């Protein structure tokens, strides 16, 4: 059993839901990313997605686009992102870590070589936003060989046939996108979300986590009533950017994430 599966099975046995956090590698800088992820773990994050920046993140809204752009302007690369993950892994030996990126940067790196280095750096699995199961055959094969999980996404528009494919192929958890749209802050939770998640859960025992547009403890509380966990990205990226020069950055992030985690219990 992979670290992801083990970790989420343990949560389930404690009747607890998962909090997954997202940060961009290298925004505001690599040292900060390492310290931030360590803080996320202390505050109760059950898993952290590390964004490997791409110049053309077409599934992301303005906040994460801008964050990726800042990281790239700082000289962030795939190789340097893996180095950040390696340093994070040294600090948090047991925390599930999932690089999240787009297909072109890892394809350009070389899928096999990338997967080998990612595994060695301490990654547990990947989310490649623009790689659906149909195009992921080679990537999936390589990840299996390296012992890396591959997480695939479902959306409110996914048909039954696709739910069957994605739930079968996704490892660790199934990532359910909360709404049609890109990442970014929203005030409300879509009314249809409960039905979307409930429907997916009819096809799988794997945990189903919900992401996109979740930023407040009350969002988390409402979603974990029917889902197994939540993913919080944009609000955290925004908070880190806003407080990047504040000496209390880590404490502020800790408080925020702890408040989200409390809502999962």
């Amino acid at each position, binding site marked *: 059993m992979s670290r992801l599966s083990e970790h989420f099975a343990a949560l389930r046995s404690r009747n607890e839901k998962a909090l997954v956090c997202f940060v961009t590698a290298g925004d505001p800088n690599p040292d900060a990313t390492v310290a931030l992820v360590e803080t996320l773990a202390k505050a109760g994050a059950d898993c952290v997605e590390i964004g490997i920046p*791409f*110049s*053309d*993140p*077409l*599934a992301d*809204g*303005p906040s994460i*686009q801008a964050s990726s*752009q800042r990281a*790239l302007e700082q000289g962030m*690369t*795939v*190789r340097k992102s893996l180095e950040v993950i390696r340093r994070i892994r040294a600090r948090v030996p047991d925390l599930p870590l999932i690089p999240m990126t*787009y*297909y*072109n*940067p*890892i*394809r*350009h*790196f070389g899928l096999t070589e990338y997967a080998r280095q990612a595994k060695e750096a301490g990654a547990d699995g990947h989310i490649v*936003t*623009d*790689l*659906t199961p*149909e*195009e992921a055959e080679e990537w999936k094969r390589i990840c299996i060989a390296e012992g890396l999980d591959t997480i*695939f*996404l*479902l*959306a*409110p*528009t*996914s*048909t039954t046939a*696709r739910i069957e494919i*994605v739930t079968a192929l996704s490892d660790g958890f199934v990532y359910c*996108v909360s709404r*049609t*749209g*890109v990442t970014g802050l929203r005030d409300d939770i879509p009314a249809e979300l409960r039905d979307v998640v409930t429907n997916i859960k009819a096809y799988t025992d794997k945990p189903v986590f919900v992401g996109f547009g979740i930023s407040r403890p009350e969002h988390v509380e409402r979603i974990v009533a029917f889902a197994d966990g939540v993913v919080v990205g944009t609000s955290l990226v925004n908070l880190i950017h806003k407080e990047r020069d504040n000496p209390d950055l880590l404490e502020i992030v800790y408080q925020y994430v702890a408040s989200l985690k409390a809502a999962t219990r």
Partner: protein
Amino acid sequence: MTTATAEYALLPDERGRFGVYGGRFVPETLIPALDELTLAYAAAQQDPAFQKELDGHLKDYVGRATPLYYAERLSDEYGAKIYLKREDLCHTGAHKINNALGQILLARRMGKPRIIAETGAGQHGVAVATVCARFGVECEVYMGEEDTQRQALNVARMKLLGARVIPVTSGTATLKDATNEAIRDWVTNVRNTHYIIGSVVGPHPYPMIVRDFQSVIGREARVQILEKEGRLPDYVIACVGGGSNAMGIFYPFLNDGAVNLLGVEAAGEGLNSGKHCAPLTAGTLGVLHGSASYLMQDSDGQVAVTHSISAGLDYPGVGPEHAWMKDAGRAKYVSITDNEALEGLQKLAHREGIICALETAHAVAYLEKMRPQLTPETILIINCSGRGDKDMNTVVQSLELT
């Protein structure tokens, strides 16, 4: 060669692949919409009423067939027989309307009340705004902020046609980023929106659909050259940004092995300057905007900043079928710099009284490179893909005309 070329017409395969190129690299949310579009298009192809409706609009609204014009003085200059396929005479001034029209009819079949598009030079945006006005459909066009400035005339045209033009400031603020924003809009509003992609790019089935709607250019040209010359041309030449006008004129000639297909990319300030957008000439395999093809990218797989004097060619990617045709040797891809294109534009204006688009000027300019190999018997067709009014600001500045 016949066997090999016969295969071209059968592509893409059902996964949307042209060899290793093409495919569907998009967020999950869009997959059902792409499936829906694939089915709707297949049904439309089987429906004689659809083709009849399309043909009717192409004739009476667009003004097809466009002439295949014998460019006499240009021919004298180069010592060959040069024909221009006059897509610049289409309604709205470029070939883009062929695809916009076909796709809006598809959108109507699918019952999608809202249309979005991306545009670079603005020709595709104008074409989409035009058909949306014609059919009374809501229209929003994403356009890089830099392009809204260099193609201000087309922005005004789109607005006059009732479209909303949304300037895109992210990334490099050109066509690539306008496409990102259009895809983001589509992901968000996919249930009621059809995205009319303007070139033979994007996830399957777009490269196929756009090619098919544009191939009216080549079908007409093939009949017309046989009427005028009694034989097929030696060369068919077209500029390539995303590659829709080139694919449109190339495709019906694919099985004519003796016809040389030449795609002309934008070399910008020169291939060695780093400021260009010639992925087929100087790019590598990559994935952008939903398909695998040649791509301008850096050593880290980040999409490169491109440059061309021509907004319509200023794009780091290219259609996957062009990539396949390049590798298979069926078409050859070359490049022309900004300055050479400006010379080509002036030559066509002076010699034929035709002011073409800066994009088209790249194809015209390649004649200069071919000069040594041309004979009085050589027959060439250049796809005159668009008219140049939109580029007057750029041309005036570059040539210091006042």
